């Protein structure tokens, strides 16, 4: 009974989200001039982390503070992030403390987990994601497809729906995706403000996506 209620609530929430999103998409975007912006980066595991850190490495100091979200127990990603931030600090301002923070949330989906049980684990990680995103209130969320990015982006969207803050969501599909989108990509195609692909075949299939060549 409880699960049916939760499911109904989830479906209801998603419907509301979609309606709001449609409205937001059709509304013209205004570019607000700014000097800096807070960044929330969703690092996944393995290849996802490597890719997204290359993108973060190319961003200027204006993207500060930087908040990284990793899945619990993902020590590999944590050490890659520390290494990147250390090298940034050495390169730019050896005397200043680097402006970055690391946050851990439960995994929303293990590789090969079934779709239905993913829905529940994702809802569970929403429970952790929303308070986190609400606390950070980033200007921009950057992600590239680990399962963890879905609850984070939904939370970011909720901030906008609740009128707390409009968060820009940027999704970069992994270089591994040449012809088909990942599951996260298929979901965030509807939710992101900017959806970037790295192969021309995907740009053809999704004409509204952005193709800048190979960026990682």
């Amino acid at each position, binding site marked *: 009974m409880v699960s049916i209620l939760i499911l109904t609530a989830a479906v209801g929430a998603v419907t509301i989200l979609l309606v709001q999103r449609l409205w937001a998409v059709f509304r013209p975007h205004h*570019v*607000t*001039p*700014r*000097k*800096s*912006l807070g960044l929330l980066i969703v690092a996944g595991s*393995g*290849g996802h982390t*490597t890719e997204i850190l*290359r*993108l973060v*490495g*190319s*961003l*200027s100091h*204006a993207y500060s503070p930087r908040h990284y979200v990793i899945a619990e127990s993902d020590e590999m990603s944590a050490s890659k992030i520390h290494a990147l931030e250390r090298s940034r600090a050495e390169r730019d301002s050896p005397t200043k403390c680097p402006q970055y923070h690391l946050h851990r949330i439960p995994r929303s989906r293990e590789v090969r987990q079934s779709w239905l049980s993913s829905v529940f684990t994702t809802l569970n990680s929403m429970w952790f994601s929303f308070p986190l995103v609400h606390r950070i209130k980033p*200007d*921009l969320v950057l992600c590239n497809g680990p399962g963890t990015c879905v609850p984070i982006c939904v939370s970011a969207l909720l901030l906008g729906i609740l009128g707390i803050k409009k968060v*820009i969501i*940027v999704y*970069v599909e*992994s*270089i*591994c*995706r*040449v*012809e*088909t989108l*990942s599951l996260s990509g298929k979901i965030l195609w509807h939710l992101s403000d*900017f959806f*970037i692909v790295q*192969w021309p075949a995907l740009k053809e299939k999704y004409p509204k996506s*952005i193709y*800048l*060549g*190979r*960026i*990682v």
Partner: protein
Amino acid sequence: MKSAFVTVGTTSFDDLIACVAAEDSLRILKNLGYNRLVLQIGKGTVVPEPFSTESFTLDVYRYKDSLKEDLQQADLVISHAGAGSCLESLEKGKPLVVVVNEKLMNNHQLELAKQLHKEGHLFYCTCSTLRGLLQSMDLSTLKCYPPGQPEKFSAFLDKVVGLQK
């Protein structure tokens, strides 16, 4: 010292390990001038016996924290189709042969290897065609893999978020 490095990543690929460690393959590698073969076998159950003679050395291990060093030292990389292994080898400028595991169909990882093959950055085969390919391939025909351009991403982002310089 010319060495070949075989990597299967965090998975297992017994057919590849068995094929490349077989007597025939070792003879082909020797004929091509290789005198060292390193096998990274992951979770595999086929574990060839390492040996070292005057003319040839076979090293075998399951995992290492970083494969960087072995990749760096290799003159030829023979890899499973995993995106991480493929990209890392190409970025280091290593000639690469990707061996597709036919038992893993519809694996999305194949997308990338196929595309990179289409663009001429790597050779592509199955276990049954590996030996033929090793003998016939001409490594000088491979195109080098240019680095990605994250600066295009940052320029794009600066513009769309309205960042003032």
